[in-house]
């Protein structure tokens, strides 16, 4: 029969002979089995680009997580206005007085124009904040997308229709406009008028709104996957044995959706990094003095003509991170889904 000839599986097959012949080693072999996840992992390890980009990505995350520690060792913080405190650091136009954006032994990456803050620690914290926001958003988006998509897909009928329409509306809604038009307003409602808007609230609401829009495409995708999976015979097998819908969704379907979920997540994270930075660039989202990639790029976009160094650090690190993450995502996809050739 021509179609089902999966050559990959063949070498793994357990033949009855070897088990019958050698009972002892089989016991050992019986326990160490090659789950689909492990197989993907082995495939991944073979992919050099993937591994290198994984290291780059990990490096960024470590840098972000350890930012306070590094800052402590380095002896600076991202908030002190060194240039303002020590007038010799900034020239009369508030540009760093030293060459190359004021890079020196004291300020490894220089200081920023106008306020004269330390770019190195600012960048570290920017990475930290950006990654925090995008990672949290990715997790939430994946979570809601999965739960809603799975439920709608599995239950079908009215639920599915209703969810489908909500998704339609969300996808048709111009999101950037929403952000610049309504998000700041919603923030003001949440905060008492004589209190400063706490940064955590900005972050939380930013994540919330990005999640509110972000789950829709994932849910739609997973709904489609579930519709296909639902027809697979192993789901019927579970039903025949009397499994509850919850069990079918979470024990039977969900494990089979890890691949698309992971793929979506690897696509989403760098996307959120850039979306979040884009929003900050437009002046919504995080803003000075909260360190953030987008904030830095936005600042730098005004000074690059006089101080390209300042553009260099956030711009280049961001591009490196996004490229590395995209490469990593590609490798993860290849490993999980070797047929989808790339």
């Amino acid at each position, binding site marked *: 029969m021509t179609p089902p000839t999966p050559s990959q599986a063949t070498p793994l097959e357990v033949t009855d002979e070897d088990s019958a012949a050698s009972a002892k080693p089989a016991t050992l072999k019986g326990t160490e089995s090659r789950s689909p996840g492990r197989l993907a992992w082995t495939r991944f390890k073979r992919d050099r680009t993937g591994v290198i980009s994984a290291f780059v990505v990990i490096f960024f995350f470590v840098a972000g997580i350890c930012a306070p520690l590094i800052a402590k060792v380095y002896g600076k913080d991202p908030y002190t206005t060194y240039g*303002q405190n020590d007038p010799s650091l900034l020239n*009369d136009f*508030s540009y760093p007085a030293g*060459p190359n954006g004021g890079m020196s032994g004291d300020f490894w990456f220089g200081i920023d124009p*106008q*306020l004269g803050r330390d770019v190195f620690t600012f960048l570290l914290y920017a990475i930290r904040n950006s990654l925090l926001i995008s990672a949290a958003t990715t997790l939430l988006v994946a979570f809601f997308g999965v739960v809603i998509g799975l439920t709608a897909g599995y239950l079908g009928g009215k639920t599915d229709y209703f969810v489908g329409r909500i998704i339609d509306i969300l996808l048709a809604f111009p999101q950037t406009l929403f952000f610049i038009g309504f998000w*700041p307003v919603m923030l003001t409602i949440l905060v008492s008028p004589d209190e400063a808007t706490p940064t955590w609230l900005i972050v939380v609401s930013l994540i919330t709104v990005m999640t509110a829009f972000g789950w829709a495409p994932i849910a739609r995708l997973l709904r489609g996957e579930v519709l296909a999976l639902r027809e697979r015979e192993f789901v019927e097998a579970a039903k025949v044995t009397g499994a509850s819908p919850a069990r079918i969704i979470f024990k039977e379907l969900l494990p089979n959706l890890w691949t698309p979920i992971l793929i979506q997540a690897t696509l989403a994270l760098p996307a959120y990094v850039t979306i979040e930075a884009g929003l900050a660039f437009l*002046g919504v989202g995080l803003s000075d003095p909260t360190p953030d990639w987008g904030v830095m790029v936005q600042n730098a976009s*005004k000074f690059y003509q006089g101080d390209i160094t300042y553009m260099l650090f956030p711009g280049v690190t961001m591009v490196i991170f996004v490229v590395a993450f995209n490469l990593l995502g590609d490798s993860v996809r290849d490993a999980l889904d070797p047929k989808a050739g790339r």
Partner: protein
Amino acid sequence: SSGGGGGNSGKHAGTDKYTGSVTVGTKEDSTGPAPEIEGAKKGGNIIGIGPSDFSHLDPQRIYYAWNSTVANLYIRALTGYKIASDGSMKLVGDLATDTGTMADEGKTWTFTLKDGLKWDDGSELTVEDVRHGIERAFATFTTEGAMYVQSALVGSSDFRSKYKGPFSNKHLDSIVTDKAKKTITLKLKVARPDLNFTLAMHSYGAVPVGHDTKEKYDKDPVSAGPYKIAQHAIDKSMKLVRNPHWDPKTDAIRNAYPDSFTFQFGTEGLAAADRLIAQSGDDQYAVMAYSGVPAERLQKVLTDPELKKRTINGLLSGLYYYAINCKRITDPKVRQALNYAWPLEQIRRIYGGQSAGDYATSIISPDILGYDHQDVYGKAKKPQGDPEKAKALLKEAGKVGQKIVYTYPKGGNDAYEKTKVVIVNALKAAGFDPVVKAVDQGSYYDQVQQIDNNFDVMWFGWSPDWPTGYTVMQPLFDGATIANGSNNVSQLNVSWVNDAIKKNAVITDPKAAGAAWEELDKKIMTELAPIIPETFQRRFYLYGSKVGGALFDPLFSGFIMYKLHVKA
């Protein structure tokens, strides 16, 4: 373009002299044509680059300076300012033959129109048209314009309840015109010795009775000046061409060298500066219409001699300050402490250093008649702030740790995102508990002008409508104006201040009036400290290398459009 700045250059790059010393001109001065500019030739097109479209073209709806930069080209009022090449201003008659005749201690004003005034369709510009322009300001749709004359004519700030405007075919009894003699007489309910200055505002420009399209006039006004609007794509571009019926002999103020002006909107200051730095193609004929070189480009522009040659600069006529909400911060000591603590130097550094302007140490700005250097809080000596003094005052008042809610408009000028950082630092150092509460710029004025707002210190700015103390003190500190939407955001309501304003307003001698306002300024700052003056900002504008006659307009703080010409 390469990294790094280079050392401190010391002095700022602007001119040192204040330009706006204003005098009142004679009938001679008011007679056209305007003096020729050396080397200027007719022809060509000047391009004006600006971030957004002029919000109004209808004279009665024009108030803001940037609208006036273009209004100068087609709107004419009874009076106007004649600006010399050294920047000195003279109030002269524009439509009128002179600056008017005052009688009745400033309650009656009479003007006579020049001969040969025409609208752009060739019809005659009459006293009826001048009256119509004033009466129109009472209409329901002209809410954006100035209100001084209306209030003075009916004697109430709620003037619309007294007169509904000319469209009901009724005229104000307080304006008397004589078509034959070409005179127009305004009979005021209250004395206004500086009404001739007030009438120079474009808000009181003439409008042809026969061609008034009411709301629609805003899109397609009729020109009395040297240029008329030929094409206008809202928020995108506007083209003005010569008005053939404008007679230079009737106009002592305006030159008109270029054949046309083209305004291009939608280019923010930074981009506009970059365009002019590069000046590729037609940009050689361009000027930054009304938004200046932003702080971020000052270094590049001012340290490159070639670029610096292509700039004009001047101080803005207005004052940037921080209003203290006297309703919330009731103790003058705390307000004084705020004044001491405020980090003027750090703030100005963010604006671009010395080139960005001068520290403001008083309410009245240098352009105003009678300005006298004064510095109650010693800010000139300690512009970085004096936290010790501030702290001492706070302690005295028993308000150490006082919470200060500081607000500024978010989204307009990015510099405020930076200044807030140094302000917070300075306030903390002085023993305050600063809370920053930015407000979206779209609703900023609306919110800070609410009587019961929750802000303690509010970023604010004020440009006088004509260069006398009245136009600063009255709107900002007259207790009678306090209401939602009032510019007295400090909500200062002190009887001696109110009285002084009333008294000073009717002093007819400009010199004496100037001195009186100065004194009031000093007293208010010393005793009440309702505001923290920040800077008299200096603005730099770039123009293309083919543009000649570039001159800083001391009144509207931009290019004087009608003096520009295209170099050969």
